[in-house]
């Protein structure tokens, strides 16, 4: 008998140990604590629930395994006849209620804290669209001039289409890298105003414990305050169409002096970009130059939906090869749809995402590639004129 008892104790202990081993904090099996006060509190609450669940499972499954061994027919041929015990029922209703209260109280406190975006030091509007993020820093004491840019996945298509042969396995940030990071200053309460342009997206950075859905037509508020400089990566977490898995979030947190430098760098960058665009726009481009730039832009920005061969995925992503828009239709209509996008479809407004030269080139490319051969040439100046309403 004593041996049996030791056996039970040993097995229950082993089971508990194995379960707890599985939820070791340090290993890659668990959620990361992250870097903000919020994320660490979330992690701690998570661990608390996990331990409570482990404890409950040890008791409940322990009782079951005990029965399997000691109440099996061969060992326990005469079954008991009880099927009722009001006392036990009360006990095992009351104890779970108490456990739940124990879990709920800290959860309520933490939730209220997490949803309080007031008294922030700066604000960034986050807009999700198919399939990229857009960030707009709102003007205030810290941000002198509004800054806005798109943030696109920068992992080359070659890597995800040919994972084995393209060296993608060496890319540690595969599918988690973008062309323009959301850069934020350290120790600053940043408020995010999250919205979307087309379907529902969701903005999530696990190490900041920030997740908020982006709803078209509505703004949602959330916030973070990051005490440690670093790069933090997340992904879109609401199915938003074909490239839902290909629109990551990258937040780069800099020290305050570095952030100030970045700000002035951004302003300078905009000045240079505007100058370059203006210069390019004033030139007359020949067909070869347009087609070369056009193909580069097309393959990078348009091929995801319209396909490299122009065939598209109709009817949601129309074909450009042989389509009226790119051949018989007026050039102006073609320019309109590229610059302004099309409401109610995944075709975004590229007027804000490409330079005039890039748009001129890609439209020229679309009108001449794949056998479209219209011979049309669109100049950057034409795009400029169109945007001005002439």
């Amino acid at each position, binding site marked *: 008998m004593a041996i049996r008892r030791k056996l039970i104790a040993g097995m229950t202990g082993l089971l508990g140990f194995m379960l707890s081993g599985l939820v070791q904090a340090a290993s*890659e*099996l668990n*959620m*990361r604590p992250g870097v903000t006060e919020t994320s660490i*509190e*979330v992690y701690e*609450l998570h661990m608390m629930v996990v331990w409570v*669940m482990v404890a*409950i499972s040890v008791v*409940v*499954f322990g009782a079951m395994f005990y*029965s*399997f061994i000691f*109440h*099996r027919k061969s060992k*326990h041929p005469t*079954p*008991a*006849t*009880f*099927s009722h*015990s009001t006392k036990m*029922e009360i006990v*095992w*209703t009351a104890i*779970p209620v108490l456990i739940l209260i124990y*879990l*709920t109280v800290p*959860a309520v406190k933490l*939730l209220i804290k*997490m*949803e309080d975006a007031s008294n922030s030091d700066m604000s960034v509007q986050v807009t999700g669209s198919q399939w990229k993020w857009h960030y707009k820093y709102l003007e205030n004491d810290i941000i002198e001039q509004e800054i806005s840019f798109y943030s696109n996945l920068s992992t080359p298509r070659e890597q*995800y*289409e040919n994972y*084995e042969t393209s060296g*993608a396995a060496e890319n*540690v940030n*595969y599918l*988690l890298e973008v062309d323009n990071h959301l850069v934020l200053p350290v120790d600053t309460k940043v408020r995010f105003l999250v919205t979307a342009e087309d379907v*529902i997206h*969701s903005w*999530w950075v696990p190490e900041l*414990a920030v997740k908020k859905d982006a*709803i078209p*037509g509505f703004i*949602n508020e959330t916030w973070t305050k990051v005490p440690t400089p670093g790069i933090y990566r*997340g*992904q879109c*977490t609401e*199915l*938003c*169409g*074909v490239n*839902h*898995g*290909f629109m990551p979030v990258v937040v780069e947190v800099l020290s305050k002096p570095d952030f100030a430098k970045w700000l002035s760098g951004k302003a300078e960058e905009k000045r240079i970009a505007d100058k370059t665009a203006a210069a390019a726009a004033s030139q007359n481009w020949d067909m070869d130059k347009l087609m070369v730039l056009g193909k580069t832009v097309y393959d990078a920005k348009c091929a995801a939906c319209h396909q490299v061969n122009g065939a598209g*995925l*109709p009817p949601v992503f129309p074909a450009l090869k042989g389509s009226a828009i790119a051949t018989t239709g007026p050039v102006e209509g073609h320019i309109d749809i590229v610059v302004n996008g099309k409401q*109610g*479809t995944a075709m975004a407004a590229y007027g804000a995402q490409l330079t005039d030269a890039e748009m001129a080139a890609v439209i020229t490319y679309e009108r001449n590639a794949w056998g479209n051969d219209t011979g049309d040439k669109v100049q950057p100046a034409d795009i400029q004129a169109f945007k001005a309403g002439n």
Partner: protein
Amino acid sequence: MSDHHPTGITRWFYTTNHKDIGTMYLWFSFIMFLIGGAMAMIIRAELYQPGLQFVEPAFFNQMTTMHGLIMVFGAVMPSMVGLANWLIPMQIGAPDMALPRMNNWSFWILPFAFTLLLSSLFMEGGGPNFGWTFYAPLSTTYAPPSTDFFILGVHMMGISSIMGAINVIVTVFNMRAPGMTLMKMPLFVWTWLITAFLLIMVMPVLAGLVTMMLTDRHFGTAFFDAAGGGDPVMFQHIFWFFGHPEVYIMVLPAFGVVSEIIPAFSRKKLFGYSSMVYATASIALLSFIVWAHHMFAVGMPVAGELFFMIATMLIAVPTGVKVFNWVATMWQGSLTFETPMLFSIAFVILFTIGGFSGVMLAMAPVDFQYHDTYFVVAHFHYVLFPGAIFGTTAAVYYWFPKWTGKMYNEAVGKTHFWLSMIFVNLTFFPMHFSGLAGMPRRIPDYNMMFADFNMWASIGAFGLGFTQLFFFVTIIMAIRGGKKAEEKQWDGATGLEWDAMTTPAPYHSFSTPPKVD
């Protein structure tokens, strides 16, 4: 005389016999299970390694969507209706369901509805690709043309479910044998009665919702379009008002099955029968006020988040009561571990694990880190596969001898069990970890930090897929060449179907109602 039945293929088209219809539902659901499972194989093949190896993202989204729709509406729900049809009349001493012809229509709508749904995969623009939860505006403005067929399919399937539920309620209320009071009914009948009420209340809401989708798409309304004054979030409220009771619809009958099988193989009455009834009813009532726990990240005000968090955590209480009652049934019993018992025990353990991740998900501040990740996928697969599906599997093994008069091979059954047990855990347990590590749902490709978990899940999935074929062979072998079953195969079994009926059950049973004391 009571065994005389029609022959030929038209028997199946015209039958109004609850046993025939139950058989058709079960076979239909199994075929759907294999089709939905094949889609899961495609998903897991693509996710076996990082990179896009087998399918394009557009097709992948169709697979995840259709896998969910087929499993929820084509496999789990019809399998439960199949069990209801076979068992409810026998367990209450009734000769058949109350509305036998409506019963036939309820079934035959389904092959049409699902042919329509599956054919949408071959239409221009592909099939539904917006997730089984089909949130607007992805499913309205930005959806492929086949969506209208999806809507029609949902309507048809909904009508089938509503008719089936009405049939169950009328049968249970009006056709019990004299002496069979409500509180003497087997728990399986109770859980189905409650499930039927859930069905008649929420399936019409789903019907209203997809109708609104249809008018948004084609008739100029803007229920879910901000530009027209609508609200995409309202879609989610209406959907989950249906969706949460729906998940209880899928699992309550399994609770009933397990509540029959565990007492039989413990040779001991079910512990706390009346608590089990009240707990099931509480779960059903509470299921109406927790829907927005699927929407914590949507931008709800704090007051709403707090309400739904607390209400959701409350559901753990009656669910816990049921688990404890099953454990107490086994305690001090006299247990044997035939295949039905193995599946039922696995149900209790693994459904409870799914319940643990459910409590974790209910806690809103932490849910922000789990929402729309593989942690959620792990949770619902635990409650659905080793939950609902193991429950149905246990039922099939348990009642097989009564239905067919033959016995399946116990060693083969046990093998099926152990294969299922190993592979279901190998497939879905790692998903807790990939979710905690940060892997979102519904993505065809991922960063290498998620690679190991995905590899194990895919290996498990391939094994789990193979195991279903094993199950199929087991059943066919038993039907064709199984040994003759005992009159009462399980010595611990109780109930009218075991004690007041011959084996196999006659084609027309209880033409005269049995006496119940």
